[in-house]
Structures are given as C-alpha cells and as structure tokens.
C-alpha cells in the first residue's frame, strides 16, 4: 500500500487493469494455457490461481477436461494425461490429428485403485502397490495446477472396488477377506469414517460389489442384492434385487442415454439405459472388418462425447534397447456411432498409436499377468 503505481511486472495485459485482463484470459480454452504460461510471469501465475477459475466459472467458460489414467503390469507408475480433442483440417480427418495428451506427472502405481472426482480434484484411492500388497494411500490430483499431493489415508490397507461421491463426500466400498466394508471421506475435514455394512458377516458374492451415486442417494450393489443409503443419516433401505448383467457391465460408458461396453477383444455392445428388458446388442461393423488389430485389454472411454477405444500394445525389447525390457505403446481408435431404424452401427473413424509409455520393468511379465487398463474422468475447470 506504500506506492501509488503498480509495479509493471504485475500487469497481465498492459495497459488494461488486471480485472479486465483476467476477464480476457479466462476466456481462452485450456489447451492454450501452456502457451499463455510462456508469455510472462504474471500471466503464468494467474493461470493456476483460484480467481482465474472463479472468473471462468462466472463467465460460463469452464470446460469439462478429460483425464486419462493408464496402468499396466509393466510399470511402477500410473500414467496420467489431460486429453484434448482439437479439430484439425479436413485433409487429416482419417488420422489422429485430433488428440493431444498433456502429461501429468506419474503416480506411484496402484493397480486396481479407484478414482473419484470432487470439484477440481481427482482422488485415487488404495489399490495394489505390487501384485500382492494393498495400500491405504490416497493421492489427490489438483487439476488446476496438475500436481499430486498425499490425501488422508484410508482407515486400513484394503482393496477398493468402487467409489461414489455425494455432497463432497467420497463413499468407498471394498472387500476384506469375505466381508464387505464401506467408509466415507469428508473431503473438507479430510477424515475417513466407517459406515455400517448393509450385509452382515460373510457373503459369497461379496466380491461383486459396487457403489453408485443416483439422484443424491447412494446405491450399493452386493452380488444380487441392492441397497439404498441415505447420506444424511447413514441408514440403509433394501432396494431389491438386481440382474446379473448390471454387475457384469460395470465398466460401461454412457453417451446420449445409451451405455456402451467393450469386451476383451474389442467387441462393443450397447443397451439403452433404464430398459431392463432389452438385452445388450453388438455394435455391428466395429465387430467385423474394420476393427483395430492387436487389441490388448481394450478400454472404452468417452472423450468430449465421442467413444474412443484405448488399448495397449506390448513391444518386446530389441537388441538396440538398453535393458531388453518391454515397452508399452498406447493406441486409440475413435468410434463413430450411427443410428438407423433403432439399430446402432459403428465405424472406426481412425485408429492410431498415440503414446509410448516409458520402459520401466520386466520382472512382472514373468508371471504372465499382462495387464493394461485405462479410465477416463471428466473435471470441470
């Protein structure tokens, strides 16, 4: 408060006042932010500030940013990327000229960990640190600054099978021995608390459990049973039985009221959401001629409303490779879905290798537990 003139180094866009500068910069889409960050220090520091994101939200300029996580049995780390779909000139429409991957620093890997989004943060809960040990660790990605921090650990190292978010609270469900456990994290107070399980003692189908948020309530499915949890008083109510398919297709993607799911050889099936009588149907044509080849553990994700299949390709080390280890290549294929007379058919718009993951280990490949998994989350920024 001692000087009357602002030091010039603090000005975002001279000679405009900074509130106007902020108003202008908040309108720039996020994939251009790295370029802005190289313009000057004041611009760079505003880009990760709370007032910048508040301005974006106020101006209706917030974007849903896709985060892709990739884990494989060849890596000590979980790889994370922000993915942008940037339309390119028509001339390159048949190639992957669209996807851009912004690397987020990798995370000490947790196979089978579970993720949840609260505000601008992604929580990664538990999982395996190697193929035998489970972890109680929680990692939190602050998507604004793309940095990881340690979150409050779960009450015990246990494997988590799924998580759901209601009112800033993360409910995690998992199995320990043959028993179901549920606990809840208040992301404000950063405290975990146990929730009484709706099923007592041991239950054969306990491993097939999942938790979902539905209209502000929590729905827990354990085997063929379903329960509602009221988050306000943490009481249970029986919701009736669920059909088996509901559980089998838990890795589904939803686009325009239709759920899509892909199997281990990349066949995509679909079903209308909420139509329990309808069985899943195969998406024709993707299953036939133009299916991408060499699929290993394909996952289906939704990127900006479009179906994208992601899979890993194992590249065994050549003589020129330093360690003779195994490299992992990531491929993507964009699937176009067309509706005709109530039937959907699909076509692969393009399929291409998009990433080469760093070479990390070879030991794990000995036990033949080849594993590749990718998941996509959406965060409003």
């Amino acid at each position, binding site marked *: 408060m001692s000087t009357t003139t602002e030091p010039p180094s603090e000005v975002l866009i001279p*000679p405009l006042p900074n509130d*106007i500068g902020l108003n*202008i910069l908040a309108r*720039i889409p996020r994939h*251009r932010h*790295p*370029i802005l960050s*190289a313009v000057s220090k004041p611009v760079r520091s505003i880009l990760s500030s709370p007032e910048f994101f508040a301005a974006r939200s106020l101006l209706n300029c917030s974007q849903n940013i896709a985060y892709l996580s990739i884990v494989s049995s060849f890596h000590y780390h979980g790889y994370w990327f922000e993915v942008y779909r940037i339309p390119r000139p028509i001339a390159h429409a048949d190639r992957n000229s669209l996807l851009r991957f912004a690397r987020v620093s990798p995370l000490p890997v947790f196979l089978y960990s579970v993720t949840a989004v609260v505000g601008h943060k992604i929580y990664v809960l538990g999982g395996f640190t190697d193929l035998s040990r489970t972890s109680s660790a929680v990692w939190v990605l602050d998507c604004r600054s793309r940095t990881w921090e340690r979150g409050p650990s779960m009450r015990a190292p246990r494997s988590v099978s799924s998580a759901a978010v209601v009112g800033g609270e993360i409910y995690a469900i998992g199995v320990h021995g043959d028993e179901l456990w549920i606990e809840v994290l208040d992301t404000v107070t950063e405290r975990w608390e146990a929730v009484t399980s709706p099923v007592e003692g041991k239950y054969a189908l306990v491993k097939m459990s999942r938790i979902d948020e539905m209209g502000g309530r929590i729905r827990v499915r354990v085997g063929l049973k379903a329960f509602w949890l009221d988050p306000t008083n943490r009481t249970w109510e029986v919701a009736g039985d669920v059909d088996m398919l509901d559980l089998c297709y838990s890795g589904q993607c939803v686009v325009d009221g239709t759920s899509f799911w892909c199997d281990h050889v990349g066949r995509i099936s679909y079903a209308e959401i909420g139509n329990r009588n309808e069985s899943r149907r195969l998406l024709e044509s993707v299953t036939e001629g133009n299916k991408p080849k060499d699929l290993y553990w394909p996952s289906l994700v939704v990127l900006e409303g479009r179906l994208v299949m992601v899979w890993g390709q194992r590249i065994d080390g050549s003589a020129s490779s330093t360690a003779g280890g195994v490299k992992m290549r990531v491929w993507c294929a964009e699937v176009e879905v067309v509706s005709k007379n109530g039937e959907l058919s699909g076509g692969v718009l393009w399929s291409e290798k998009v990433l080469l993951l760093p070479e990390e280990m070879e030991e794990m490949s000995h036990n033949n537990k080849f594993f590749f998994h990718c998941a996509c989350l959406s965060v409003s920024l």
Partner: protein
Amino acid sequence: MSSSSTTTTTTRLLMLKASDGVTFEVEEAVATKLGAINNMVEEEGSEDLICLPNVNGKFLGMVLEWCKKHANNNTNSDKGNDEVNKWWDKEFVMDLDQNTLYHLLMAADYLSGTELVDLLTEKVASMIRGKKVEEIRETFKIKSDFLPGQEEEIRKKNSWAFE
C-alpha cells in the same frame, strides 16, 4: 433489484457529460443499460446532468451507440432480435483498432456495461487464440520477464502444446 422506471411511458431524456465537456442527450432506457448510470439515476433522480470524468466524448459516444442499438432491438421482444444483436455486435467490433478497443473496454468497464465488456473482452480473447507466444507478446506489448532458461523449461514441459 428495484422495480422503478415503469411508471411513465414517455421517454425521459438524460444529459451525460464526458471528461472533455462533450455532452450527450440520451433516452433513459438507453443510458440505464449501463450499470453505473442506472445506479446514479436510482440514487439521485434523473433531472440533473450526469458528469462522467473518466470517459472522453469519443468513447462515451461509441458506448452509447452500442447501448442505443441494444435498447432498440430489445424493445420488441422477438426471437430474431438475438440474431440481430449478434450480427450487429460482430460489425461493431470488427474493425476496431487495438487502441480504440482498449479505451472502449475501459470506458465500458467504468460505466459497468457488463454486456459490452463481455463483447469487447471476447474480442481481445479472439486476438490471443491461435497465436504463438511471440505473436502474443508483440500484439499486446507484453515483455517477457522470465529468467534465462525458464521459458525453455515451460516449453519443454508442455511440448505437445507448442507444435
């Protein structure tokens, strides 16, 4: 929110005086599209001359021109008006040079013309999108204040964005 100015159907005129002494006689419905003037009218009544010491006549005139167009287009509430406004806004900002754009933006901001500020900041933002780092610095006269090596580090870390 107050519920004033619906009492009379006759158009009231306000006198606005810019920093360089230029005066504008405008309809109240037009001038009150500017939040600052709306506040003054509600607080003091609209009989007096309103002095605006932070805006000169040239830019006040342009701001009022914009207000007039939008006030006119909004009177008959037709769905097509949105399109008309959009088209007119596009024309309005199309050929503005940077200096005029900045002065207009500061005037609109001072007068709390939120919609006009939105239009003009969007125009400046469109001049940033699609430009390279050097082009942004050159267009907006921004000096790099990075230490040697810092900028290279940022570029290297985000190489995907600098293709």
